[in-house]
């Protein structure tokens, strides 16, 4: 194992952060290696759905940007008790979103990630959204979070993480999700909003 990989993936304060000023070349080398390893080994959501070549571009971009102007961005890092790799994950996820937004209007760059292109124009309908929000607000918190996580397109294992359940809770999640969706649909219908109408209005 090299010196650099001695940095643990879950370190909140990897050693290179201590030598940004005293030994910037070493800090650069180790930060570069850490970032590539961390983001390749455990890519964050959104980013991980991108084409591998785009992922590489974004990693390379972030590595350089963090080191520009004498590590200005890295100096802004504050130890909040979470792994440094988590901080990197936030940055790269947001950069991935920027990339998707920038390129998303070009059909060849559409990604398969579930976003709000499903029903064009839907989100512009404020009254409709107010009704949905109101109905969601009448559902108990855990059920609401389950609905939101499922709408994110998360897998059962990931939904379990969000809900704080054991990983093998797939069956329970499926059952609960079915119940929660039925409840929301019923509330929407009681509020005068039938899904069939929404779908019919799509075109």
């Amino acid at each position, binding site marked *: 194992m090299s010196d650099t*990989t001695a940095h643990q*993936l*879950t370190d909140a304060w990897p050693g290179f952060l201590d030598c940004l000023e005293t030994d910037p*070349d070493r800090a*650069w*080398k180790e930060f570069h*290696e850490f970032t*590539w*390893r961390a983001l390749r*080994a*455990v890519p*964050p*959501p959104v980013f991980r759905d991108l*084409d591998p*070549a*785009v992922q590489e571009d974004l990693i*390379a971009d972030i590595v*350089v940007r963090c*080191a*520009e*102007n004498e590590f200005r961005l890295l100096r802004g890092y504050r130890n909040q008790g*979470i*792994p440094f790799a*988590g901080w990197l*994950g936030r940055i790269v*996820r947001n950069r991935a979103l920027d*990339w998707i937004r920038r*390129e998303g209007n*070009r059909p060849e*760059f559409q990604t398969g990630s*579930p*976003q*709000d292109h*499903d*029903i064009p124009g*839907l989100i512009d309908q404020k009254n*409709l*959204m107010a009704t*949905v*929000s109101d109905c*969601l607000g009448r559902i108990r*918190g*855990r059920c609401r*979070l389950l*609905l*939101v996580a*499922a*709408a*994110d397109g998360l897998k*059962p294992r990931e939904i379990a*993480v*969000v809900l*704080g359940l054991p990983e093998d809770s797939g069956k329970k999640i*499926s059952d609960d*999700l079915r119940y929660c*969706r039925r409840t929301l*649909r019923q509330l929407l219908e009681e509020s005068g909003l039938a*899904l*069939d109408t929404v779908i019919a209005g*799509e075109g």
Partner: protein
Amino acid sequence: MDSDMDPKALAALDALIRAATPGTADSPLSRDLLLKYARGETTEAEADQVQAALMGSRELRDELLHLADLLRPDAGATFDSAEVPAPPPRPGTSSATADPAIVALTPRPGTPPQAAKPLIVTLPPRRKKWVWGIGSGLAAAAALVVLFLLPGEQAEIVWGGGETLLVDQFESDLSRGGSTDSLVPRTPAEAATLAWVRRAFWDDGSLSLVDPVDPLAAWKRRVTINLGKPAAVITLLIPEAAENPEIAWLDLDSRQSFRVPLATDNVAASWPMGVPARGLVAVAFLLDGRPLATPAVLVEP
């Protein structure tokens, strides 16, 4: 996952939920509590607090998922075995910045001061078939061709636009003999690459996009350079009014510099032996001994 609803109704419901819960705001939730939740170590009250925050922030949900992945037992081994490319030079520390040969390339009269500043760009160390150039478009393009033109291949660089654009040229385009102004990315990866370079260029803010020889709009002179490789040539179209055009190259490893006169139309200027075909080079297109624009510094991955 849900046999009660047809897929279209499910998609509609999910889209409604997403639209009604955009959840983009940053969460005030303390990150150590989030980490505790990811480890399954929160009390019931703390879990409620975390879940309330998760409900309102897609970013926080993604952050939690990433944390949970980082904590997985096999993540450390994957981290240790992940492939890492060689690091590029640390941004802002290329030897070019301190090299007197580059510093000596003083700007042409009337050139915006910042145009003479070498633009050092650290480039993503990836695609081996790509070379990157930022700076004087023409110089960068010339460097790209020199670095990647294979024996027997020819490329013509047409630099006649009113825009001093960075040139990020792809090998295949060059070997076909394309115009640097007509670069059209053909794949998402190429588009991302181009976007990256453009962003780096524009965001830097240190380089004026004003072409110092503009409005020299007549681009009539055609100069062919023999690269010193068998049958490899580069053809440049340069301004008719250009005085003593040259290309200057600096090998940043050996610190040797070279100048190639381009003074005569359609005469092959020999490429000096010893110019690296690979590696870190700085390039400037000179008129009357002074750089036309910012010298380009190229880093080949």
